[in-house]
């Protein structure tokens, strides 16, 4: 059972989940979390990830394959920094996101409840992004087995505690 903790000093807008490790079971758990969050918002999704921990060319290749016409993937030549924008999160994308989460040192998955993405959110903090637009931001912090989820004041978290 994962420990889901609400951090009250952030007005109930920040929760953390521990411990989510790079195992088959935890990747599935992570997929379920992202799936529930994306189901509760209906807008664009913006994924930024950087600092790969190993050769990630296979993961990026997979991401390019599942990319749809309107999706946009932008990566530096060495895959050090990547940004991916999409309108719909498919099952294959969810699987790929779970691989990305554990392969990169820094990840910020932004799920918006709006039909557009605010400008200049690249390399911004979760609270800046969630204050700009109704959204969830799933990100990594100091502990790499902890999933942090920040949200805007005006939206509610979906039920996450029953995910096993």
């Amino acid at each position, binding site marked *: 059972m994962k420990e889901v903790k609400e951090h009250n000093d952030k007005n109930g807008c920040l929760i953390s989940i521990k411990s989510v490790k790079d195992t088959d079971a935890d990747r599935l758990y992570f997929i379920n979390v992202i799936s529930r969050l994306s189901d509760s918002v209906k807008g664009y999704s913006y994924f930024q990830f950087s*600092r790969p921990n190993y050769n990630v060319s296979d993961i990026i290749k997979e991401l390019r394959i599942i990319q749809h016409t309107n999706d946009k993937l932008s990566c530096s030549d060495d895959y050090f920094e990547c940004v991916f924008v999409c309108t719909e999160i498919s099952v294959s994308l969810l699987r790929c996101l779970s691989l990305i989460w554990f392969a990169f040192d820094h990840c910020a998955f932004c799920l918006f409840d709006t039909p557009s993405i605010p400008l200049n959110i690249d390399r911004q903090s979760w609270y800046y992004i969630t204050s700009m637009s109704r959204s969830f931001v799933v990100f990594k912090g*100091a502990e790499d087995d902890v999933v942090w989820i920040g949200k805007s004041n005006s939206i509610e978290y979906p039920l996450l505690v029953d995910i096993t």
Partner: protein
Amino acid sequence: MGSQYDDRNVLAMLAPTWLLKEYAAKSPNGPQKWAYQTALANQSDLPFIASLRKIQDAVYVASGVVGVADLAISNGVIDVFGANGGYGLLGRDGLKIGNYRLDLMYANPSAGENAGTIFFLKQLEKGGAQFRWDYGVLHKSGEMGLHSTIRFHWNGVKYGSAAQRTWYPSSLKPPFFNTLK
């Protein structure tokens, strides 16, 4: 016939580059100055000496950086991880030594102000060794704090795995972990 290196040459080659340069600059022209210049040249010409120097420099820098980071964090200095646009003291490319990469003092922008990694030495392969010290909000306390991740292989056995440790093995525990308020 190639040059031979005795202990004195090797010692000179292992001396900090800045020190050799200073001695070379202060020495009058003659054998002493030439010796310093030769040692400096050898530092970059010999691959194994060059690699050793990089590791030494990294350790010197890292030990200083971690101490400075602790001081800066505990004194509430703003933008501790702001060097090179947040990419850290070693820049976007870090320092690569063989299959390892070292990064120092880089920001984790999405986690918010003053969150970042103080020291990260990682083996660039899946499940590879990692030695890492981070600063940011911790799951348990909900407050800013330091966190270490240690993962390594020894005699074919993997220690640490992906588990996070908020304790520090005594042999690896720097004194500054106790000072943060």
